[in-house]
Structures are given as structure tokens and as C-alpha cells.
């Protein structure tokens, strides 16, 4: 067995999982399982939310240690699922290390849905959350417009490389402002609060929060607190954005000389 390739495979599997938003213990577990296939004395992995270290050692060989820094993160549960499958197959000896490495390389680039479909996702979340919170057909229609604005704002912030805090605040700001604007000038009588709540749902850090709890429970306190902090910061950004949007609207409509 090629130890070097095995370590490389293990770290690649871990890296994809970590980037795609898996819990720390799952990443460590996957790397450990793959490394143990080598049958060496020590097979260790240490994973933080920002990086991976993996090491394989034995008196018979020179120690192999790999470190990998992870910067960009993007939730993609399909990749977590696929990597999990590959590692299962590898550990059950259904595929060789070479095959596993090749498959992992393919997984790193897989995208299930096109960008257009994802934009529809934003609109869908806004519309159906409005429905879920008890909105009427008119509310849902207004939510569709707000959702489209949100999708556009999300695209724009990626284009101009806005950092996470600013991009969340910017999206939330546009949501609040658009909805209030629609309520006043186009569809009076829509329930603006429900629509705003529905539209900020894609921004609210539900996923990060869930992962943070599970990390903390598993004893990965460093990553757990880091992710919890991330969730709090995102929530603050959304709150600040919505607040700014509502404030601006009030200021514009309150100072009637402007209009």
C-alpha cells in the first residue's frame, strides 16, 4: 500500500468535508478511518474549523505529516454525502486508494444545481416561508419580488467580493427596504413583517448554529465556540441590516418634504 497516497487521500477527503460544512468529529472520524487502512502504529488527525493536520508514523517508515489550511467555506451537503460514501467503500475494500483519490478529486468540483436554480431557491424560500408563517396569496407574491431582490443582492456581493458581515447586512438591508417600499407604494395592506421574516431566513445562520451545537457536544470546544461566534456575528449583521433598512424607510417617509 502506498502510504503517501493514502495520507493524501485522507486529507483530501477531510478537506472537502470541512469546506462543505460537516461537523468536526465527522471529518476527524473519516480521516482516522482512512489512515488506519495503512496498518501503521500511529495514525492521528487534528481538525479545526480553519485547518487540518494528519500524521502517519511507524518505526519502519519516515513519518508522513500533512497540514492543510481551509479558508473558504460553503455549505454543500451533497459533497459531504458523496465523500462519506467514498470513505465507506474504501474502508470496506470495495475500491482501491487510487480509485478513491480520483473519485474525491471529481467530488471536489461537483455542483448539483445550476446558478439559475439556486436563485429560484432564494425566491422559493422567501415565498414558502411567508406561506408557512400564515401569509396570504398577495403576501407570497410580494415575497417573490423580495426574494428576487435578495438573490440579486447575494449575486452582487459575491461579484464585488464583499466580506461576509457586510454582504449579510447589505442583503438584509435591501430586503427590509424593498418590502416596506412595496407595502407603501404598490401593494398596500400586505403583511410586511411576515415577508421580511421569510426573506431573511436564507441569511439567518441556522446551519452554522446546528453544527456549532453538535461540535460542542462532541467535545470540539474550539470549533464549537468559533462556529457559535460566527452564528452570532451573522445574526448581528442581519439585525443591523434590517434595522438600517427600516430606519432609512422611516426617515424617508417621516421627512415628508423629501417626497
Amino acid at each position: 500500500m502506498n502510504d503517501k497516497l493514502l495520507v493524501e487521500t485522507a486529507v483530501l477527503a477531510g478537506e472537502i468535508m470541512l469546506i462543505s460544512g460537516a461537523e468536526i468529529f465527522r471529518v476527524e472520524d473519516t480521516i482516522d478511518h482512512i489512515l488506519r487502512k495503512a496498518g501503521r502504529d500511529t495514525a492521528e488527525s487534528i481538525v479545526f474549523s480553519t485547518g487540518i493536520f494528519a500524521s502517519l508514523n511507524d518505526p519502519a517508515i519516515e513519518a508522513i505529516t500533512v497540514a492543510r489550511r481551509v479558508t473558504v467555506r460553503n455549505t454543500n451537503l451533497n459533497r459531504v454525502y458523496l465523500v462519506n460514501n467514498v470513505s465507506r467503500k474504501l474502508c470496506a475494500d470495495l475500491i482501491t486508494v487510487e480509485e478513491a483519490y480520483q473519485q474525491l478529486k471529481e467530488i471536489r468540483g461537483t455542483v448539483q444545481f445550476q446558478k439559475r436554480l439556486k436563485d429560484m431557491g432564494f425566491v422559493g424560500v422567501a415565498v414558502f416561508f411567508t406561506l408557512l408563517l400564515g401569509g396570504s396569496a398577495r403576501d407570497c407574491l410580494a415575497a417573490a419580488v423580495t426574494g428576487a431582490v435578495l438573490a440579486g443582492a447575494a449575486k452582487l456581493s459575491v461579484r464585488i467580493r464583499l466580506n461576509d458581515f457586510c454582504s449579510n447586512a447589505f442583503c438584509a438591508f435591501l430586503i427590509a427596504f424593498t418590502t416596506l417600499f412595496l407595502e407603501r407604494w404598490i401593494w398596500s395592506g400586505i403583511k410586511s413583517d411576515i415577508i421580511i421574516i421569510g426573506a431573511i431566513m436564507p441569511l439567518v445562520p441556522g446551519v452554522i448554529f446546528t453544527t456549532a451545537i453538535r461540535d460542542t457536544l462532541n467535545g470540539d470546544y474550539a470549533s464549537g465556540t468559533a462556529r457559535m461566534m460566527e452564528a452570532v456575528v451573522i445574526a448581528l449583521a442581519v439585525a443591523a441590516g434590517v434595522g438600517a433598512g427600516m430606519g432609512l424607510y422611516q426617515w424617508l417617509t417621516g421627512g415628508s418634504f423629501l417626497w
Partner: protein
Amino acid sequence: MVIQTAGAFLAVISFSLLLEIPKKYFVLSGGIGAAGWLVYLLVQAAAGSVIAAAFLSSLLVALSSHIAARIYKAPVTVFLVAGILPSVPGASIYRSVSCVISNNPELSSHYLVETLQISGAIAMAIFIMDSLFRLGKKK
């Protein structure tokens, strides 16, 4: 209530698009989310408490996610994350901010506390289910 549950089903499926949940589990995760929201509405109607509603619905979502993960041999996260989303306290965060804007600090801190309580309730529910399914599992 039927319409709202259907809304939850479709909302979770739209969210699955954003989170890139594997295509074949779309309907299942939507179903888990809808069941969770139905429980949320029922508990809220019966007990009148948002926090109890969030707790019990998260408990159900976590339980069914663990079972689904065992059946389909997929990571628990795939089902859990999307199912939890309807009970995430986005509404309380919004109301808290909106009260600040409309000069009502007392109501604002009420909603802020509610946000924290709901988050705590969801966290407790996930904790409990994770711990239960961990029993007797070897390292």
C-alpha cells in the same frame, strides 16, 4: 394549518436547493421539515408557548433525521439541517430589531430573550437526540 404545513414542505425543499442536499433525499428532508412544523403549530396552539413548540418540534426533527440517516447510511447533517430551519428564531430576531426602530426597548429585549430561549431549546433538543443515539456506540 394544512396550508402552512405544505408551505413548510416547500420551504424546506427550496432550502435544500441552497444547501445542495443530495437530490434523492429532497422529498424526505422536506417531509421531516413539514412534520416538524406541524408539531410546532400543534404545540403552539395547545400550550401557547413558542419555546416548548420549538423544543418539541426540534426533538422530532432530530429523531427522524437520526433514523433516516441510519436507514439510508447518510450523514445525519443532511436531514437535520434542513428540517431544523423552520423553527430557527428568525422571527424573534426581526421583531427585536423592529421594536428598537419603533422606540420600544422593553418589547425589544423581550424578543431578544425569546431568541436566546428558542436557540437554547433547539440546542437542547439536538443535544438530547445526539446523546441518545450515541449510547452504546463504540469509539
